[in-house]
């Protein structure tokens, strides 16, 4: 097979751990130079997938192809990939420079070449000044940058990252998300990043895959997955989503009408494969909802009365918990730009509105 354009290819890869299937017939194609995330809850098989790519484990069936080479029986030390470990796994008995030089030394590069490349890698992560420190003398963020430098200095075809930002505090994580993406664009190496944090995956990735119980649920750009989730699980996992269970009443062109008990008729965009009479889930994101004191539709196709159960002021927006006529609780996030006068308080009645195009119809 030609490896042009594709950096990593998994074909029907299955991996069992005892009785449980960690990875279930997973097929994925990761393009050269892209930032690809594998997103899933714990136990979804995302870490197993990464370990299969690194070579620590061998698939029970299926094929893994990296840079056009079949990886069957190839041990980790002979694969063109490097892994950034979740706990960084820096060698505690070596200095920062010693850690970064390790891979090049093992490859047998001449010392004259190792020195400049180590310096270059440490400058890239802005740690050249601390090259003689031991890992224990560094902060968590610095250790993480050493781990990145230690992997990138080898110029691997693919960089694997296992929950790279998981051990950092919130503030540092947001900074590192931007930094990691910038770094990837600069070095042009394929990044495969495993994470359970949807925000992280959406921010950094060119494309991402959502895994659940070892199976691939959806692959696409962050927009694709966020806007058009392929299943209720993806919709919920990618972000807090509101949903209504109902039955399709009729479909006219691109427009579906759904009957929901206790609420009435809801309008949503039709999707292929869903016919009249089918049970469906209508999902809509909290930030797509509008709240108003005015009953008039104002051009919104969906509107009904709700009660505000809770209002949480969050700076640029207010987060509401709303009680629907069918007693379901929904979340809404409304910008505060219009001033405090328009905000609602707990116990008030309001009208909830949204446009047909904002909702996503999912087969149940």
């Amino acid at each position, binding site marked *: 097979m030609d490896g042009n354009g594709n950096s990593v290819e998994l074909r029907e890869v299955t991996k069992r751990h005892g009785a449980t299937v960690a990875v279930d017939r997973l097929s994925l194609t990761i393009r050269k130079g892209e930032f690809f995330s594998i997103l899933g809850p714990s136990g979804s098989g995302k870490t197993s997938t990464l370990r299969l790519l*690194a070579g*620590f484990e061998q698939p029970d069936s299926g094929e893994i192809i990296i840079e056009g080479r079949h990886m069957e029986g190839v041990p*980790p030390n002979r694969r063109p990939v490097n*892994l950034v470990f979740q706990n960084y796994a820096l060698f*505690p*008995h070596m200095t920062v420079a010693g850690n970064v030089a*390790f891979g090049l030394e*093992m490859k047998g590069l001449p010392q004259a070449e190792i020195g400049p490349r180590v310096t270059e890698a440490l400058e890239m992560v802005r740690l050249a000044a601390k090259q003689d420190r031991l890992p224990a003398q560094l902060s968590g963020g610095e250790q993480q940058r050493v781990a990145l430098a230690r992997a990138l200095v080898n110029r691997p075809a693919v960089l694997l990252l296992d929950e790279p930002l998981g051990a950092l505090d919130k503030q540092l994580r947001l900074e590192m998300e931007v930094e990691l993406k910038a770094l990837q664009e600069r070095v042009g190496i394929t990044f495969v990043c495993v994470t359970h944090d949807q925000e992280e995956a959406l921010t950094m990735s060119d494309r991402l895959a959502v895994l659940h119980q070892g199976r691939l649920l959806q692959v696409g750009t962050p927009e694709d997955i966020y806007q058009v989730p392929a299943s209720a699980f993806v919709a919920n996992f990618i972000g807090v989503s509101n949903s209504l269970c109902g039955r399709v009443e009729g479909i006219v062109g691109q427009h579906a009408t759904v009957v929901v008990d206790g609420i009435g008729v809801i309008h949503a965009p039709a999707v292929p494969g869903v016919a009249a009479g089918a049970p469906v889930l209508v999902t809509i994101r909290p930030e797509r909802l509008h709240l108003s004191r005015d009953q008039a539709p104002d051009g919104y196709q969906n509107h009904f009365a709700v009660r505000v159960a809770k209002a949480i002021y969050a700076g640029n927006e207010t987060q509401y918990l709303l009680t629907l006529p069918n007693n379901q609780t929904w979340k809404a996030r409304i910008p505060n730009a219009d001033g405090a006068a328009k905000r609602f308080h707990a116990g008030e009645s309001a009208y909830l509105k949204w446009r047909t195009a904002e909702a996503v119809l999912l087969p149940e």
Partner: protein
Amino acid sequence: MTDIRLGGGPADAPPKPTPSFPWLVIPPAGVLIVLFGVPLLLVLAVSFASRGTYGGIEWALTVTNYTSIADPLYLRIFWRSLWLAAVTTAICLVMGFPLAYVIARAPRRWQGVLLFLVIIPFWTNFLVRTYAWMFILRTEGLLNQALLALGLIHEPLNLLFTDWAVLIGLVYGYLPFMVLPLYAALERLDRSLVEAAWDLYAKPAQVFTRVVLPLSKPGVIAGCVLVFIPSLGAYVTPDLLGGARTMMGGNLIQHQYLGVRDWPFGSSLSFVLMAGVLAAVLYYLRAGGARSLT
């Protein structure tokens, strides 16, 4: 040490800012002083005395007990002891490391069982176990019978009462003292460090020399010290398995005390042996371990 409060005041008393006297240290310290310190001083004193005509001690101050150790006869025995202890330590290390590694990497529930198996020999008296080795190693013993039956040898090997028998006995006796500290060190070793080295192009042998061995150094040092010291002073093993021809330092001292009844010379030999152990351990710590122990 003094900042650890060992004394118990009334439960509701506020903590005192001044460290209280560590009362609980008194009993063990007392035992050590009375039963170890005082006899040691006695032996030191005796080592400068002279042997009476009928084996008693005459308090005539002399250093001849020390100068006469320089006799090649005794030096050879000490040299043999050092050599056998060093070889025993090396063999225990080479055999104990893979064993400790396997135990440390075994599933949790198996680790306890495997450690238990390492410790099980301690349930039987060391003397009894050494007698068992005599049955195994003697000319018509189990080992020779097995080798003859397998056709590997055509006449029995002469094993018992040789250096080989002593070496086998010492390695057998002290292997657990190597395995336990090595296990403790390897069990703490983060598995992901091994994987990281592997991922960074290290071959399995390089993973071992560059990551596993340096990080388990404290265990290696502790194990070597724990095997080397008792091997150097071993008495039962060389006595039973080595016979009269394979004397080690411990046997020489015993022989002086009980055989020849020359207590002063036995005492000086004891002190020279102790000094030798101390020097060897200090040298080893300085050369190999000082850095990794910090």
